[in-house]
């Protein structure tokens, strides 16, 4: 490892622009002639649209256009789709209802877009939006997935009887039933995974520009995957063919999953630009983000785990109702199925598993992948069950887990996944040591003297990243391949550009990807540029989500670097009159091994472009492309331990310490990896203690601003103790697993296990707000 190579704690190249105010986000973009859009949105959760009257709005100052869904439909713009086909257990395909980018006959959640207003200024667009008169006939709404299939519940889409989208099974029901027959103990729980709002700090935005002379569209958008956006808008939404549509995702202020999806607004802004003849910019305000960004989680689960008399797990049964909201978002069907139920084996040897998932429409915002996507829900089920089992058996939670750990690899679970490598005991030991688990009893006694309830809880999570072999996901219903592309361009002066289909919106790719190049060729980081986020520059890519940019995106770069290295060595061997096999790259030069004969990197590059003296038959230039399709998911895993103090008088929880011991395989930049863990932990702790999206029974979102939705603040969190161990991933050339989501996946059960340990009651909902904790304490004690 050099000072800028793989494994080095290098400060980020991209920071300069962000700390000086020179970042370029979509809202910072200005195109000549650009105007501003506001959307008129449904105030009702469920209603028929009787009439839309735009006359008053059209006459308002500065108004350029007021456009409706009927006009959009007449122009042939298509409905939004879900890109992952799930079949129910009876073999029938999922029941997807129509989602028009602008609703014209019916609205199905508060925030559903109905009309776009384009005006000279943002203020004028909003004024005119208020003047649009829409007559609705209100219908009964349902917001709770556990009630949406009840008799008498409103029917949301004609395509989905009883609001059931699919009824899906995984695992083996007979084997699982047989396992429960043999059980000495059965642990049963009802578990709710609370609905969250992702809340990237940059609100979603879109700037659509139609160039009439070229018949060409450009879309600047807050996207984690601009190429997928272009593909979907071309192939399914009929906005424009791919060669006439450029999608640019410039600096993007956080995503956490919510910016994977293609939303109505970018489609409508592009279409409206053509209709009005001006570039159209829309930027969400925060309440629009709360109402319309895809939400996360919202599972209702009943789980049962069977143990033998020695506390070894025999089987697991899980039934989950997943709330998908009012429309099926782009990957909404995959999140509660293949990203959730396939992880229900946790870190444990479980001979038989059977899970059933019902996906259900409600009159709420669409629900899709949010940091962790399915895996936090699976981990919460498993780790609440294990902790509960340990309490019921009166055994150590650590030892119950240890007894059931998977210890030999590869390990085929009963739910598709084949774990390739891991050492779960190593993470457990590291976390117990770092948290001084052995000394907890003393600390608890000391807290009790102060009148405080001290508790400790752990969570041993596993997740699946680097999604995944294209053929495998294709066979499971994915509408896209899940590979990644890279292009490495060596310039004539030896500097290097790497074009990647991954997208950085905080992950630090401009630094870590450059570290790979530095490691390989010795070129300083400053001479390496990473280019991403523009469909005109990067040919194709699948983007960033599911912690895939390391395991998949960087592996593609490695493949392209291999090709560059091979050609560079051929050129050097020719220049040095040596054998190609004897060339090594050291300290920025290509050398004949064991001699002092060398050609500096930049001279080799220059030779490639002057082409005066290349090996016979070799093409000039030095540029290589690679597509990398992974052979398996990767399986990061670890152990988190949370210690809390609860004030029984107020129900307030303070996190005294939080320890994370993760195995991410090999690491490119430890500083960035730690940062990813910190951020994930904050989101997971936020879910456990503070955050929750609440709709009232009429479908109004009660938590639609930062006044009402509790975002974790600095004062809510401790500093974290993080460490890593390493079992390299055998499935990719770098041996890396991915670290982007682990913190959010592993932490919620650790927090809830700690609080329930402190208060002596196992029944506690998330978020464990002071009132919830206080009520749980009151329910178990006599007052």
């Amino acid at each position, binding site marked *: 490892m050099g000072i800028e190579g793989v494994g080095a704690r290098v400060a980020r190249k991209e920071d300069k622009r962000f700390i*000086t105010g020179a970042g370029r986000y979509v809202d910072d973009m200005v195109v000549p002639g650009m105007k501003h859009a506001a959307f008129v949105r449904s105030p009702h959760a469920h209603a028929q649209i009787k009439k839309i009257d735009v006359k008053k709005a059209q006459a308002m100052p500065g108004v350029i256009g007021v456009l409706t869904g009927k006009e959009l439909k007449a122009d042939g713009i298509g409905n939004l789709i879900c890109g992952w086909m799930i079949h129910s257990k009876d073999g029938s395909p999922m029941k997807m209802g129509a989602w028009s980018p602008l609703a014209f006959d019916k609205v199905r959640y508060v925030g559903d877009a109905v009309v776009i207003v384009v005006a000279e200024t943002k203020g004028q667009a909003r004024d005119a939006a208020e003047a649009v008169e829409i007559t609705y006939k209100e219908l009964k709404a349902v917001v709770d997935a556990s009630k949406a299939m009840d008799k008498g519940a409103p029917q949301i889409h004609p395509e989905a009887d009883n609001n059931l989208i699919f009824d899906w099974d995984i695992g083996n029901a007979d084997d699982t039933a047989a396992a429960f027959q043999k059980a000495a103990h059965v642990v049963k729980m009802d578990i709710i995974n609370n609905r969250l709002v992702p809340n*990237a700090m940059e609100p979603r935005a879109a700037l659509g520009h139609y160039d009439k002379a070229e018949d060409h569209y450009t879309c600047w958008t807050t996207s984690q995957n601009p190429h997928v956006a272009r593909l979907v808008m071309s192939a399914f939404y009929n906005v424009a063919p791919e060669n006439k549509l450029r999608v640019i995702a410039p600096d*993007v202020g956080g995503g956490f999953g919510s910016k994977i999806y293609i939303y109505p607004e970018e489609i409508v802004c592009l279409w409206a630009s053509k209709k009005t003849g001006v570039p159209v910019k829309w930027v969400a*305000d925060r309440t629009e983000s709360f109402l319309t960004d895809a939400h996360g989680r919202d599972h209702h689960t009943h789980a049962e785990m069977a143990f033998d008399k020695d506390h070894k797990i025999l089987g697991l049964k899980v039934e989950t109702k997943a709330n998908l909201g009012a429309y099926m978002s782009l990957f909404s069907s995959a999140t509660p199925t293949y990203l959730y139920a396939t992880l229900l084996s946790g870190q444990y040897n479980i001979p038989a598993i059977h899970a059933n998932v019902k996906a259900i429409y409600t009159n709420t915002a669409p629900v899709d992948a949010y940091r962790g996507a399915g895996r936090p829900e699976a981990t919460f089920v498993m780790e609440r069950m294990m902790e509960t089992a340990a309490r019921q058996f009166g055994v150590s939670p650590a030892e119950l887990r240890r007894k059931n750990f998977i210890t030999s690899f590869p390990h085929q679970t009963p739910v598709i996944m084949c774990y390739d490598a891991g050492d779960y005991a190593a993470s457990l030991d590291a976390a117990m040591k770092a948290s001084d688990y052995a000394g907890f009893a003393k600390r608890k006694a000391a807290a009790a003297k102060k009148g405080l309830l001290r508790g400790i809880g752990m969570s041993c999570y596993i997740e699946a990243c680097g999604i995944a072999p294209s053929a495998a996901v294709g066979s499971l219903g994915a509408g896209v391949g899940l590979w990644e592309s890279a292009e490495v361009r060596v310039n004539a002066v030896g500097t290097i550009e790497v074009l990647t289909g991954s997208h950085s919106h*905080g992950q630090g790719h401009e630094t870590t990807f450059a570290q790979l190049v530095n490691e390989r060729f010795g070129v300083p980081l400053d001479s390496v540029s990473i280019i991403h986020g523009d469909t005109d520059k990067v040919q194709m890519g699948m983007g960033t989500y599911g912690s895939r940019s390391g395991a998949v995106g960087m592996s593609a770069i490695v493949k392209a670097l291999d090709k560059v290295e091979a050609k560079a060595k051929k050129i050097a061997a020719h220049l040095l009159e040596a054998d190609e096999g004897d060339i090594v790259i050291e300290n920025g030069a290509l050398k004949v091994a064991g001699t002092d004969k060398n050609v500096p990197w930049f001279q080799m590059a220059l030779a490639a472009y002057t082409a005066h003296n290349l090996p016979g038959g070799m093409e000039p230039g030095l540029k290589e492309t690679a597509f990398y399709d992974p052979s398996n998911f990767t399986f990061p895993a670890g152990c988190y331990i949370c210690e809390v103090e609860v004030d029984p008088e107020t129900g307030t929880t303070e996190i005294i310490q939080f320890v994370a011991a993760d195995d991410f395989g090999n690491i490119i930049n430890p500083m960035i990896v730690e*940062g990813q863990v*910190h951020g994930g932990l904050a989101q997971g702790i936020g879910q456990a203690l503070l955050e929750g999206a609440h709709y009232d029974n009429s479908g109004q979102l009660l938590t639609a*601003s930062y*006044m009402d939705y509790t975002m974790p603040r*600095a004062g809510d969190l401790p500093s974290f103790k993080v460490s890593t161990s390493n079992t390299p991933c055998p499935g990719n050339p770098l041996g890396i697993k991915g670290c982007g989501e682990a913190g959010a996946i592993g932490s919620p059960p650790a927090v809830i296990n700690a609080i329930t340990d402190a208060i002596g009651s196992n029944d506690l909902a998330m978020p464990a707000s002071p009132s919830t904790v206080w009520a749980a304490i009151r329910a178990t004690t006599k007052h």
Partner: protein
Amino acid sequence: MSDVSLMVNGKRVNGTAEDRTLLVHFLRENLGLTGTHVGCDTSQCGTCVVHVDGKAVKSCTMLAVQASGSTIVTIEGLANGADLHPVQAAFKEHHGLQCGFCTPGMIMTATDMINRHPEGLDEATVRAELEGNICRCTGYHNIVKAILAASKTMSKASKGKARQAA
């Protein structure tokens, strides 16, 4: 429309704005200073913090016309030419930013916080004083570290100056 006259990052700026124009929109749209961000509608997130007459202010809580006559420093004006301000340098060194969207507001808040605490800062104080700035990426861990480090650097620098003056 009203006239707005400001001193922004050391330069005199005159313009007109609708009466309802917020200071943040005037900075972004009239002056092109897009480093100051808008992350919410309720003055909670702190991505729009600038210095108005030496104090950290959420520029979404103030009308442009109200600010007329004030001296304003935005993130674009914090560095001394090519030399980063110590708080900017500390955010980079300690990885106190990821997506960068909250960063300008964080840095402006942190600078004000350090200036108000010449006696130095501790972790609890930093966390309490960050109440008005939300970050979704970093879990605050490295932001707190960066602010504590910058506070030390700045206090050393001011002691050094004091010694030189003596």
